[in-house]
């Protein structure tokens, strides 16, 4: 027990000695990442947007009433950088593309759609998508807006025609209606005043800002492991052997070193949290789920989220234990952060990916961590068995590997 306590104390001392260097690496990496993101957004933003617009299929009879020309006009007028691409196609093709995840969704235009509208009917446009993703929600919002727009316009036009017929006997109500529609198109149907952009909730039931915060927090924990390379790459295998011979086996060694790793994470995490809070205040960035909480509730939330960070730390620790040498360790950490960050939805919401990948990502440790954070933000308080289970599993595996190596 004495060996364990002294070794833990010495590991903490060692970790604190390495902390300034590791914080410097962390800041440098963050600055480089921010610079990279800035450059990409400035230099490559336009080209990227042209390369990867959101594709929406349009199926049905498009030759009715200049509908195809209308779509083309709409396409050429679209001023947004995050561009939509409306593509006329057959329904079979659209369905196949949708299944492969190459299409965000498609609109089915009913037969005689335009003619039926002119006769006063309201045949519905059907939008088919893969799920309840952000794209589907956006389309629903747009559809709602379009329906109110059309209904209100109709009310206004018919109301104006009735007014002219009743009160202005010399005037032709239909010619007056045409003038009104033209004026409406020229002055009122102005894209800039037609819609506002609101952040819709992500499919997981939390705001996009909260989703982003959770993803970035997990990504930070995984990337922090790279900055901790000096702590892990300079461990002496001979010391591990001697400790093992003196009775401090793999389990004790791993527990001591993991404690030092966690202290470093807490120190860096506090630093980044404070910096993040300052920047959020400066740039007026708020997470609705957190804004509603008191300080104590936020602190409790942080404490409840801690096991997720510990679990990811334990995974990083295990990877360092598996890797041979500093370069291998850093590469493994980088791959881990990138793959898990991407697939689990820390970088992009998982709903951007095909369903199979979404399921796979949700089963990864980062995916489970993300789900846990989302549950906490939605008010969940029960401890997550999966997170604690994985934490223990990773540490036990690391201890077993250490024992095997030390006593081989």
């Amino acid at each position, binding site marked *: 027990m004495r*060996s364990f306590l*002294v*070794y833990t104390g*010495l590991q903490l*001392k*060692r970790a604190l*000695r*390495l902390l300034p260097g590791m914080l410097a690496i962390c800041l440098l990496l963050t600055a480089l990442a921010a610079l990279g993101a800035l450059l990409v957004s400035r230099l490559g933003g336009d080209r990227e947007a042209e390369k990867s617009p959101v594709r929406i299929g349009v199926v049905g009879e498009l030759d009715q009433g200049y509908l195809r020309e209308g779509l083309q006009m709409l396409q050429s007028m679209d001023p947004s950088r995050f561009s939509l691409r409306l593509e006329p196609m057959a329904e079979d093709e659209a369905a196949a593309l949708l299944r492969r995840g190459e299409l965000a969704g498609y609109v089915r235009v009913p037969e005689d759609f335009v003619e039926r509208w002119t006769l006063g009917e309201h045949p519905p446009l059907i939008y088919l998508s893969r799920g309840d993703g952000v794209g589907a929600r956006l389309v629903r919002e747009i559809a709602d807006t379009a329906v109110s727009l059309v209904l209100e316009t109709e009310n206004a036009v018919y109301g104006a025609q009735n007014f002219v017929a009743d009160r202005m006997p010399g005037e032709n109500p239909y010619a007056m209606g045409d003038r009104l529609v033209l004026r409406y198109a020229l002055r009122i149907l102005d894209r800039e005043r037609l819609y506002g952009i609101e952040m819709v909730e992500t499919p997981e039931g939390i705001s996009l800002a909260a989703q982003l915060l959770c993803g970035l927090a997990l990504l930070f924990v995984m990337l922090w492991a790279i900055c901790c390379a000096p702590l892990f790459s*300079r461990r*002496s*295998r*001979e*010391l591990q*052997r*001697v400790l*093992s*011979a*003196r*009775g401090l086996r793999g389990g004790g060694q791993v527990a001591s070193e993991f404690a030092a790793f966690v202290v470093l994470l807490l120190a860096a995490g506090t630093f980044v949290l404070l910096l993040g809070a300052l920047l959020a205040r400066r740039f007026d960035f708020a997470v609705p789920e957190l804004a509603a909480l008191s300080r104590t509730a936020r602190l409790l939330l942080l404490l409840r989220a801690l096991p997720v960070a510990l679990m990811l730390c334990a995974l990083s620790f295990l990877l360092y234990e598996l890797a041979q040498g500093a370069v291998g360790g850093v590469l493994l950490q980088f791959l881990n952060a990138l793959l898990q960050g991407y697939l689990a939805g820390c970088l992009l919401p998982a709903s951007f990916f095909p369903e199979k990948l979404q399921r796979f990502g949700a089963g990864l440790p980062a995916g489970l961590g993300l789900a846990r954070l989302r549950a906490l933000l939605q008010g969940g308080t029960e401890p997550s068995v999966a997170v604690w289970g994985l934490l223990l599993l990773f540490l036990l595996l690391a201890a077993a590997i250490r024992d095997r190596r*030390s*006593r*081989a």
Partner: protein
Amino acid sequence: MEAEIRNIHKKYARKEVLCGASFRAVSGSCVGILGANGTGKSTLLRVLAGAARAERGEFLWDGEDLLKNSALRRKTVAYVPQGTPLIEELSARDNLRLWYEPEVLERSLAEGMLRELGVNEFLNTVAGRLSGGMRKRLSIGCAIAREPAILLLDEPTAALDMPGKDRILRYLDGFQRAGGLVLMASHDPWELALCDAWQMLRGGVLEPYAYTGDRETLMRDLETP
């Protein structure tokens, strides 16, 4: 007191490195274990130190099997591996704190073995900045915290300069004179000259060897399969 190593077997994957290594030694002596590279000298020392597990065999000390009685082994046996079993970022004093009780450490620094090893000279220097000789002295200092009766050393003065070698060999000589048993894996003529018995490890088995101090004979014998 007598130490007996009896029928030690150790395998790495499918390769049997030690297949029945046995010998005897008494306290107050120094046994040199010779053998070509890769014959299993370091493995034998690791097994005796409890840092590696043997498939079978015994390490008897006063009739007690130290491979089974780990508490007694920790008290009796000290092991200094070939590499550096130190925490590089911490000072020599911090490294010693891992193995010594605080009051024992101060006593040993003031008038005990650590003073003999000259550890006081670099007590507050970070281990990573110490010279090879200082590191080795510190490693030995860490190993002997429990005043062991048996000292296992794996090429203790390899790559050290003459003064460095001399300091460590003088210490080992003193340890032996004080009644300690030294088991040392080595090729070095200086180290071997300190020993009063030698064992050659060949084909996983130990055989008594008559070391004469002649380098050419030793070279030829080491190369003989």
